[in-house]
């Protein structure tokens, strides 16, 4: 209960910046979780990482469902998704393998368990672009070029592939098929019941209930929550009748769900103690970000500027949850991704400020 209180207090403290999208509320939420977590001030009890697992799964489920918004068949066709997906997967594999090789040389606190799992996790995190950043940039642009117009769609596609790939490659084809089947079933069920439900209150009730059912079934069957709910979201995105209403609800509660998810992810971050820890913690994320930006810059058919490819989607922090159940071994993976996330958001913010100063001058 104390942990829950901390999570909600964090969400409340950050309620004001929700209205000001340019503030780095995601980093603040993450830092708040790190500060209150067992390795910070210890306000959250030591068992918080296990106790809040279901809540984290739920937050992830909500966000993953929302991430599928751009995955309607018509949009995918327009984007020539198959070709781009192949390029993205290749890109993820290269980044993942290179970084996993680097990490295998790193000292113990940063050793993600096993080479294969590290490569998978980091490769998928490299794909987890933040579509909102590209959307905001597009909205601010006075005369957007083709690259800027394409960037949100590419980011949405990449984020979806990251969610599916991390979940599906983590447990073999049987698990993958089960996750896809369950997700499709959950999505269809949601479409059916919300068609029968009258009024927005019942629709919201069903949305919450079915998200609980989907996430709970996934946990029970040992399947990745984000793959199941993302697949359910894809089914919703292709239902012309209810799509707008359901995604409006999902988006309306996006920020509270995201903030809670980030505070909980922050509590998972384990900063190793001792001299030189900053170097140990900072080097792999710096390498990860460099590799990521370079890969996106060179990827044929996707070529994104460093500003579009640097910011990580907050869902990247939930990727270790997709690869397997969250245990203490997941902490180094989450730490690497969390520090990368903070670094990327800081660089983007500083670059934005420098730009506005230049424009003012």
């Amino acid at each position, binding site marked *: 209960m104390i942990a*829950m209180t901390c999570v909600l207090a964090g969400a409340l403290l950050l*309620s*004001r910046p929700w209205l000001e999208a340019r503030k780095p509320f995601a980093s603040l939420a993450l830092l708040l979780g790190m500060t209150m977590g067992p390795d910070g001030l210890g306000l959250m009890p030591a068992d918080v990482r296990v106790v809040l697992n279901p809540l984290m799964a739920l937050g992830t489920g909500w966000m993953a469902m929302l991430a599928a918004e751009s995955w309607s068949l018509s949009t995918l066709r327009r984007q020539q998704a198959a070709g781009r997906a192949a390029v993205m997967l290749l890109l993820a594999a290269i980044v993942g393998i290179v970084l996993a090789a680097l990490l295998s040389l790193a000292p113990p606190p940063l050793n993600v368990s096993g080479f294969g799992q590290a490569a998978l996790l980091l490769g998928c995190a490299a794909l987890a672009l933040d579509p909102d950043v590209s959307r905001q940039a597009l909205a601010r642009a006075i005369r957007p070029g083709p690259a800027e117009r394409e960037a949100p769609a590419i980011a949405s596609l990449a984020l979806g592939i990251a969610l599916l790939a991390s979940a599906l490659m983590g447990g073999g084809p049987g698990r993958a098929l089960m996750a896809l089947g369950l997700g499709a079933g959950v999505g269809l069920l949601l479409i059916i019941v919300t068609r029968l439900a009258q009024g927005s209150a019942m629709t919201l009730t069903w949305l919450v209930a079915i998200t609980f059912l*989907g996430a*709970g079934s996934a946990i029970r069957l040992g399947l990745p929550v984000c793959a199941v709910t993302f697949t359910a979201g894809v089914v919703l995105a292709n239902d012309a009748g209810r799509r707008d209403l359901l995604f409006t609800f999902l988006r309306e509660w996006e920020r509270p769900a995201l903030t809670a998810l980030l505070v909980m992810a922050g509590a998972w971050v384990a900063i190793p103690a001792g001299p030189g820890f900053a170097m140990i913690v900072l080097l792999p994320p710096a390498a990860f970000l460099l590799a990521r930006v370079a890969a996106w810059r060179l990827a044929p058919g996707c070529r994104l500027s460093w500003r579009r490819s640097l910011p990580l989607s907050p869902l990247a922090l939930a990727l270790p949850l997709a690869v397997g159940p969250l245990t203490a071994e997941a902490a180094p993976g989450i730490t690497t991704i969390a520090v990368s996330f903070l670094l990327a958001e800081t660089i983007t913010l500083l670059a934005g400020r420098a730009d506005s100063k230049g424009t003012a001058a």
Partner: protein
Amino acid sequence: MSEPVLWLGFIMAAGALGAMAARAARLPAISGALVGGLAVSLLATAVSAQRPDLRYADYLLVAFLCFMAGADIDLTHLARNRRSILAGVMAQTVLVTALVMLAALALRFDLRAALAIGVCLSAGSPAVVFAVSTELRAHGDLSQRLLCLSSLSLLPALAVLLFMRDMALPSGAALLLVEAAVAAAIGLVILIPVSRMSLRGAIVAAALAGSVIVALTQRWEVSPRPADLAILTILAGFLVATLSANRDVVRSALRDVAPACAVMVFALVGWYLTADELAAGVAGGLLLLAARIVGLLLAGLMAAGRRDALAEALGQIPMGGLTGSGLVMLMLFNGGAPERYQIPHVAIWLSGLVGAVTTRWALGRAGEAGAAEEDPDAWRAAMR
């Protein structure tokens, strides 16, 4: 199968299904949710002996609902009708306690347990009244009066529960004062996001108010603390809505999520009743409920006059679930015929099922259904 997230999904889905069926039959959604929750409970007993502990989710949602109920109380109405409302609360507490106590004695409870049951079952349920009035978009004197009566009637029940758990009155009262101060502080903190029109922030803050109070109440493992939870969250909600300059918009925002929250809460209430408890407690529960209804009619005649007695009595039938939970805990862990706790438990469930229907009928008869003038989308417009 003890996976809590999955069980929560089943319970909420069954509650939503029940609510839809109830609406189709022109009954209150929460009656359907209560039945839906019970259906999952009966199935769960057949499927698995292991039931997950969902109390935290339940308390949080109830605290949220009570916060919203508190925010819906209108200070102007309360001040204008204070004498009549206080007279109503006193008449209700005395008469219902006496009659329910007699019924409990007839059911062979000892005197101490009968007194506890009498006082606790004299309290009303602001959550049910609020849920039904929100669903009907009701607004008017009767809905305000029912909300005030049910909220204030929790106080005597809480005082007796505190006394009966062998806590010295001064320390119990001091504890309650500290908790009330915390609730007031939470209410004032929530005013900050509300004053800046961050209403989604206010909704999260309302959940925070609940969780802080739940965390406080969890310090005592064996205690009637759920009753504090109800009163304190109502107080926090009342403060927010009363002191906020944007009170209409705040109420509109909270009312927007209230029906969904109510369905989830009452589905969980249904889940907590098992087949064995239902079988063991249904006859006694019906007797206690009948005694309460007679007591309410008499109290209505005394305080509201012959014309309004029926509407007031029927609107007040739902019993306070959290004071009831406190009572059950008291009986289970602190003596007082623990083997017969099912009877008040079933009485509370039955009162929710029947009471939601009668409250709806009373509000409809008073012509208050659909009278709420606020635009349900006002808070979205305010945020834009």
